[in-house]
């Protein structure tokens, strides 16, 4: 199998991840945070270390403000539904994933919130002047997709964060496509709320993500219930992370995330970023050689440049004249080359690219992708 769908879920996982999850399932598969016997404490320590690893990766001072969720979508829902009240206003980019667009439109229907969309330049980058202008009126949250899951465009979140801070507006970043791949520093970038999944760039199994909320941001959790603490009380504890984490966690996936974040911390985000940039450059250069192929998005991938306005990450979208995305997928499927076609849960981005409603073919390389695998994709596409 040639796997080029890492923007959906990364595969393969780093060495040791499967073994760590397998060991948990076969040797000490017990609950965390509730009991004091050795296996329970061991599990609690793994979860604690995982939280610490995430804190290190994103320069978060207090790891108790990191809440484990099912995925990035659950994290974004928790924040949006917790923060936005009747008649609130949310400001988003023109490239949002449905993980932001759908909860906001649900809140529009049920709570009459206002959704404002920022203007983009011809490439898709948020126009800073428009952000400044829109923030002159009361905005309850600015929610921005750090990188497009369709065509890899990376927004300049450091500048956006600084502008939000200047206006005293909450700034939330959907880092589903960038966590583990591009350096994110919540302090330096003035990020109040950060959401990410574990199974993409953080290289863990699926079923775990996280939500970080800066100290001082408090709202009710989406889910209430048992936390293993304050059990004599029938109301939710107010302390973190218990306040936001009811019920038994997805411990197996968190143990996988503990191992994968250990791998990322050792290799460093910088090295991972450079390696993924190099393989993505190779992919783009070769796609550009194919006659009749239209490539979407920034064509200058490079190492993480925090101040650059022209950055991209690994998802690469294209179409080939005379073929629909599904026809291309059918040919690639026969060769066991895995890509994703269609709208990628991001109709806003496709409307921006003018590829709606058919969508595109998306190839997304991962940290472990080799040039010879890209060569196989290119050879197959050339034969079409």
């Amino acid at each position, binding site marked *: 199998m040639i796997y080029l769908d890492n923007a959906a879920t990364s595969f393969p996982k780093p060495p040791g991840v499967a073994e760590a999850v397998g060991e948990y399932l076969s040797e000490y598969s017990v609950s965390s945070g509730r009991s004091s016997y050795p296996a329970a404490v061991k599990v609690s320590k793994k979860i604690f270390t995982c939280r610490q690893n995430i804190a290190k990766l994103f320069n978060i001072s207090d790891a108790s403000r990191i809440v484990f969720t099912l995925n990035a979508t659950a994290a974004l829902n928790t924040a949006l539904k917790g923060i936005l009240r009747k008649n609130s206003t949310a400001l988003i980019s023109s490239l949002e994933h449905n993980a932001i667009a759908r909860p906001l439109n649900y809140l529009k229907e049920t709570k009459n919130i206002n959704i404002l969309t920022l203007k983009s330049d011809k490439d898709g980058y948020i126009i800073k002047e428009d952000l400044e202008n829109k923030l002159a009126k009361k905005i309850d949250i600015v929610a921005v997709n750090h990188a497009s899951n369709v065509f890899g465009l990376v927004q300049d979140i450091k500048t956006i964060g600084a502008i939000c801070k200047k206006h005293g507006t909450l700034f939330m970043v959907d880092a589903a496509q960038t966590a583990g791949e591009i350096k994110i520093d919540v302090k330096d970038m003035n990020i109040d709320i950060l959401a990410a999944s574990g199974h993409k760039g953080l290289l863990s199994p699926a079923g775990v993500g996280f939500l970080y909320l800066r100290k001082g941001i408090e709202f009710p959790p989406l889910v209430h219930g048992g936390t*293993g*603490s304050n059990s004599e009380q029938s109301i939710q504890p107010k*302390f*973190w*992370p*218990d306040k936001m984490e009811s019920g038994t966690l997805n411990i197996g996936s968190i143990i996988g995330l503990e191992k994968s974040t250990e791998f990322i911390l050792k290799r460093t985000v910088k090295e991972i970023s450079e390696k993924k940039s190099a393989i993505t450059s190779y992919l783009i250069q070769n796609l550009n050689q194919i006659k009749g192929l239209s490539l979407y998005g920034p064509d200058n991938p490079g190492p993480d440049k925090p101040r650059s306005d022209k950055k991209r990450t690994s998802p690469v979208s294209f179409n080939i004249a005379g073929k629909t995305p599904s026809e291309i997928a059918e040919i690639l499927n026969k060769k066991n080359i895995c890509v994703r076609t269609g709208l990628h849960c991001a109709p806003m981005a496709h409307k921006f690219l003018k590829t709606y409603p058919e969508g595109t073919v998306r190839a997304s390389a991962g940290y472990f992708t080799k040039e010879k695998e890209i060569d196989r994709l290119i050879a197959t596409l050339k034969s079409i």
Partner: protein
Amino acid sequence: MKKYLITFENTYRVLEAEKRLTGVFNGVTTIPTPESMSTDCGVSLSLKSNKSRTEVRTVLKDSGISFSKIIKS
């Protein structure tokens, strides 16, 4: 050497304290919380020290550790 039991509101705080206090005190270890002492969470921290309870409290506070109670056992 005196033995102290420290209780916390949740397991996260227990493990955070264990990490910070290992090497600062002797015999830092997690133990089951006796029901009579707390209903906060099932795990507490045990440690040994020649310091008084007030001095131990000061060390914990200076280390930024959020705890519920310190009990001399």
